[in-house]
C-alpha cells in the first residue's frame, strides 16, 4: 500500500513539477472546441447536434496526448527496469500510474465537459448524461490507453503508433458515451448505454493491470 502511494505521489509530483501540466488537457479540450466552432458555420444550430461527438472526440484526443508520456520517460531513463526489480509487483505500480493519469487528465475533462456542453448548446438533462458518460468513459480511456502505451513503449516514435492502436479499442466507449447523450437529446432512455459503459469500465479495471505489466516486461527485455 505504502508503495502504491509512493508511485502515485511520484506521478503527481512529476506533473506538479511540469508546472501547468495538469492544466493542459482541459485547456486543450477548450481550444479544440473553439477551433471546431470556428471550422463550423458561425452560430450553426446543428452544432448542438454534434456537441456530444465533438466533446467525446476532443477529450479522447486530449487524453491521447498525455498517454505516450505515461511510460516512455521511465523506459528511457531506466526507471522501468528498476520498478521490475522492486519488491512491489509490477501490476500494482502500473495501476498506480494509471490512477494518477486519470486524476491528472480524465477528471478535469469530466468536470470541464459540463460548461462546454452548455456552450455548445446542450440543455441540462443532456449535460448530466454527458458528464456521467465521461465519468465512466475516461477511466476506460486511461486504462486501455495505458495498456497500449505499455505495448508500444519500446518502439521508436511510439507516440504515433499509439493513437492508431488506441482509437479502435476506444471506439465502443465513444459510441456508447456519445450515443447516450444523443438518445437523451431525443428523449429516449439513456441507462442502457451507460450500463454498457459501466460494464466496460469494470472489465478494464480487473484485466488491464495484469496484461499491462505483461506488456511492460515484454517491452524491456
Amino acid at each position, binding site marked *: 500500500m505504502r508503495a502504491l502511494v509512493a508511485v502515485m505521489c511520484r506521478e503527481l509530483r512529476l506533473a506538479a513539477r511540469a508546472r*501547468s501540466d495538469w492544466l*493542459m488537457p482541459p485547456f486543450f479540450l477548450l481550444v479544440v472546441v473553439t477551433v471546431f*466552432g470556428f471550422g463550423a458555420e*458561425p452560430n450553426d444550430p446543428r452544432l448542438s447536434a454534434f456537441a456530444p461527438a465533438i466533446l467525446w472526440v476532443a477529450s479522447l484526443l486530449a487524453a491521447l496526448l498525455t498517454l505516450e508520456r505515461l511510460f516512455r520517460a521511465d523506459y528511457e531513463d531506466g526507471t522501468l527496469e528498476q520498478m521490475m526489480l522492486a519488491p512491489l509487483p509490477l501490476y500494482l505500480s502500473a495501476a498506480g500510474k494509471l490512477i494518477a493519469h486519470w486524476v491528472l487528465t480524465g477528471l478535469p475533462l469530466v468536470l470541464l465537459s459540463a460548461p462546454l456542453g452548455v456552450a455548445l448548446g446542450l440543455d441540462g438533462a443532456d449535460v448530466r448524461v454527458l458528464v456521467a458518460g465521461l465519468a465512466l468513459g475516461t477511466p476506460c480511456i486511461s486504462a486501455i490507453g495505458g495498456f497500449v502505451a505499455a505495448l508500444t513503449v519500446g518502439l521508436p516514435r511510439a507516440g504515433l503508433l499509439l493513437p492508431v492502436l488506441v482509437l479502435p479499442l476506444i471506439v465502443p466507449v465513444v459510441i456508447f458515451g456519445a450515443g447516450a447523450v444523443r438518445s437523451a437529446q431525443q428523449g429516449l432512455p439513456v441507462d442502457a448505454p451507460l450500463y454498457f459503459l459501466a460494464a466496460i469500465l469494470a472489465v478494464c479495471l480487473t484485466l488491464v493491470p495484469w496484461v499491462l505489466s505483461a506488456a511492460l516486461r515484454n517491452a524491456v527485455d
Partner: protein
Amino acid sequence: MWTWFHRLASPPHFFRLAERWLPWVGVTALALLAWGWIGGLVFAPPDYQQKDAFRIIYVHVPTAAASLSLYTLMAVAGAVALIWRMKLAECVLVATAPVGAGMTVVALVTGMLWGKPMWGTYWVWDARLTSELVLLFLYLGVIGLQQAFEDARAAARACALLAIVGVINVPIVKYSVEWWNSLHQTSTILKLGKPTITMDMAVPLYAALVGTFLLCAYAILRRVQNELLWRERRSGWVAELLR
C-alpha cells in the same frame, strides 16, 4: 533621446520614476472611471431600442479595447527585449500578460451578458467572438510558457517570440467585423472621424475608456516594479531600498 532611453531603461531609475507617478495614475484612473460609470449607468439616456441593456457598453467596450491594445503593447515590449536585450522590456512583457488576460475575460463575460438580451444567446461561434476567445488563449499561452521556464530571462525571451508571432491575431479581432458577416456590430465609437453616437452617451464612454487604460497602466507598473525587485533582489539598490 538615447540617453533618456537608457536612463529610463535602468531598473533603479525606472523604479523611482514609477514610484513617483503611480499615485497620480491611480487617482486619475479612479476619478475617470467613477465619472464614466456613474455618468453612463445613471445619467445617460436609455437607448431608444436597447433600453437599459446598452449600459453594459461602459464596461464592455473599454475592456475589449484594452484587451487588444495590451497585447500589442506586449508584442512591442517583446521586440524591444529581443533586439536591445533590455531587462525592463522583459519585465513589462511578463507583467502585461495577466492584466491583458483579465481584460479579455471581462470583455468576453460582459459581451456574453450583453449578447443574451441582444442576440438571444450567450455565445455564438462568430468571427469577432471566437477571435477574441483566441486572444484569451494567446494570453494564457504566454503566461503558461513563462511559468514553464525556470530561468526568468529565458522565459521572457521565449514569451517575447510567442507574443510577436501571436500579434497577427490582433488585426483579425479588430477587423473581423468588417471581414466576415458578423452578428457583432462594426466600429462606431472607436473609429476615426465622426463617431455615430450621441454625445451624452459617448462622453462618459470615453471617460470610462481612458479610465480603464490608466487602471491597466497602474496594474502593469506595479507588477513591473515587483518583477524588478525580484530580479534585482541581489543588487545594491534593492538592498538599500528595502533597508
